[in-house]
């Protein structure tokens, strides 16, 4: 109906290789991009800076984690630590007078270098042990950040982030900050979209499926694990820096604790492993869900006339969040991205359902 396509019939190789082979997808992406560009005019600034902006940044972060988890198949429980390294490096660099454009690249590179340290754990162990060693590294990073005064500015300290300056112009308006996040999110998304058309992406998938089988067909799995860890850490580091620069405006160790790592993991799992559109859905779901549940509970409390204690209200969203992760794993392990794909596959050949393979 939407796609007007009873099956996919390419007549040349260029069409087969196209990023969006189906016209309806191109239209939808175009409409979304246009909406993204004019959003500051349409949406009021509260929604812009407290919903759209964090959603875009966290999507970029979730895509970075999806690179390592969904593409390369390596478990990473310390992603927040990597984001924190990028954020702290960038804040220190800008405070030292380095322009912000260079500082975020520096932050990303620092995160990538330390992130490769995580990969050296992947070299020796895999699966469960990799998960546990990245978890241990998360704790070490937390400890180092909060206990080395040169990094955190003292225990319990909040380090003020300088205002973003692009090409010497300060970016302080809500719309300006939003565009910074939008550009970064589009950059990461197009990188990830193109990744699956390149040799690198195919090699990562080979490593994910079975690393020694990949080695047999000539893919150096150790090298590609290193590449995956450093790329994902670079994305994570820059995302952390942008999160601080545009959203929090100050950096504290708690912003990158182990809970945040689990939150990022939940985004990827709820969205779907290896799914790009899923990362958008997952980030939106995890970010919006606590607020939505809170308003649902307060609505129900008024509607049905019961009252809940403050402690119950504080912990109920968290409990439902855990229940949702469990629910997704049981009902649709490939997440929201898979649900979207199922609908798309159905509509792709509608009304000729029998065309489907």
């Amino acid at each position, binding site marked *: 109906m939407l796609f007007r396509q009873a099956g996919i019939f390419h007549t040349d190789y260029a069409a087969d290789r196209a990023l969006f082979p189906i016209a309806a997808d191109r239209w939808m992406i175009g409409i979304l991009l246009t909406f993204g560009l004019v959003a500051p005019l349409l949406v009021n600034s509260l929604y812009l800076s407290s919903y759209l902006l964090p959603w875009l940044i966290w999507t970029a972060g979730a895509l970075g984690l999806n690179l390592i*988890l969904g593409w390369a*198949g390596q*478990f990473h429980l310390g992603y927040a630590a990597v984001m924190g390294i990028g954020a702290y490096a960038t804040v220190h660099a800008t405070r030292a007078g380095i322009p912000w454009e260079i500082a975020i690249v520096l932050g990303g590179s620092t995160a990538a270098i330390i992130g490769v340290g995580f990969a050296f*754990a992947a070299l*020796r*162990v*895999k*699966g*469960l*042990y990799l*998960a*546990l*060693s990245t*978890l*241990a*590294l998360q*704790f*070490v990073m937390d*400890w180092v950040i909060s*206990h080395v005064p040169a990094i955190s500015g003292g*225990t319990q300290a909040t380090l003020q982030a300088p205002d973003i300056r692009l090409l010497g112009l300060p970016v302080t308006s809500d719309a300006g900050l939003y565009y910074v996040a939008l550009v970064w999110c589009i950059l990461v998304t197009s990188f990830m979209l193109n990744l699956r058309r390149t040799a690198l992406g195919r090699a990562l998938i080979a490593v994910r499926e079975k690393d020694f089988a990949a080695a047999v067909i000539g893919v150096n799995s150790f090298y590609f694990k290193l590449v995956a860890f450093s790329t994902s850490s670079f994305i994570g580091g820059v995302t952390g820096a942008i999160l601080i620069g545009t959203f929090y405006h100050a950096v504290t160790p708690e912003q990158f604790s182990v809970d945040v790592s*689990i939150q990022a*993991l*939940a985004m990827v*799992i709820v969205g779907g*492993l290896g799914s790009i559109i899923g990362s958008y859905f997952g980030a939106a779901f995890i970010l919006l869900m606590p607020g939505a549940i809170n308003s649902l509970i307060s609505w129900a409390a008024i509607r049905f006339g019961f009252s809940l*204690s403050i*402690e*119950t209200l*504080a*912990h*109920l969203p*968290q*409990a439902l*969040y*855990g*229940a*949702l*992760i*469990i629910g997704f*794993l*049981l009902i649709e*392990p490939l997440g929201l991205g898979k649900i979207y794909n199922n609908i798309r596959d159905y509509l792709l050949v509608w009304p000729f359902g029998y065309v489907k393979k």
Partner: protein
Amino acid sequence: MDWALLAESATNGGLVGLMYSLVAMGIVLIYKSSSVPNLAQGSMTMLGAYVVLAFANNAKAPIWLAIMLAIVTMFGVGMAIERVALRRLAGRPIIMILMMTLGLEILLRAGAMTIWGGTGRPMPLGISDDPLFLGSMLINRTYAVGAAVAIVMFGLFMLFFRTRMGVVLRAISDDYTAAWSVGISVERGVALSWAMSAVVATVAGVLWASVQGVDQSLAQLLLKGVTVAVLGGLDSLGGALLAGMLLGIVEGVSASFLDPVLGGASRDLVDAAMLMLTIMLRPHGLYGRHDIERI
């Protein structure tokens, strides 16, 4: 070098370590039977303590009866978790299973606090706070009781593994396909191991709660439990006991010497470092099977 301080912190550390191994034993029991690394063991420990308090405060049961009732309840909770959440994930990639236990961790921790609230409460076990004098060393009575209970639990498990059901569990952990083909109900065995692990978690929860009170921080015992379980070898109960003692001694000694230098909180750093070192140098731990790396 202050030898008296060294001996005292080593002894107390060893006793604390035996209490860590109570948490680790739960992880080991589940891992042995189903190769599931249970990252929810910390919150199961916390839930156990909350259930004991619920029986003691709301149903006004004496504390020993409350503990018994909680053990029975948690036995059911463990079975239910396996039946509802883990059984359907059998054979899925390890990422899914780890994420499931993380989801359970969040659900149990936040669920307990939703129901009972997050303010810290004491666990009235009636162990006196006076230190026990052993020569010139001061020893915490609660730690001593906890360590004794850990050793007793270990002994009970050793006896259990000699019974018919225990032999069944050992067969499952050895090779579940072979166990299945000779007619052993693998599902029931795995469910039993979850139930036993929930029982150990309750015992650990009660003891730890009498040390640090009943609140969210009980769930953070997970890091210690995981470290001890990995160090001892993920499928060895005896390894967990020994590794717990080892970690406790290392932690106690290094904390008493490092804390003044690093400004406190060096225990977590020591844990994380021990975990990293074990994984790097000897992933199968002290007593684990050598093929344990391949999951």
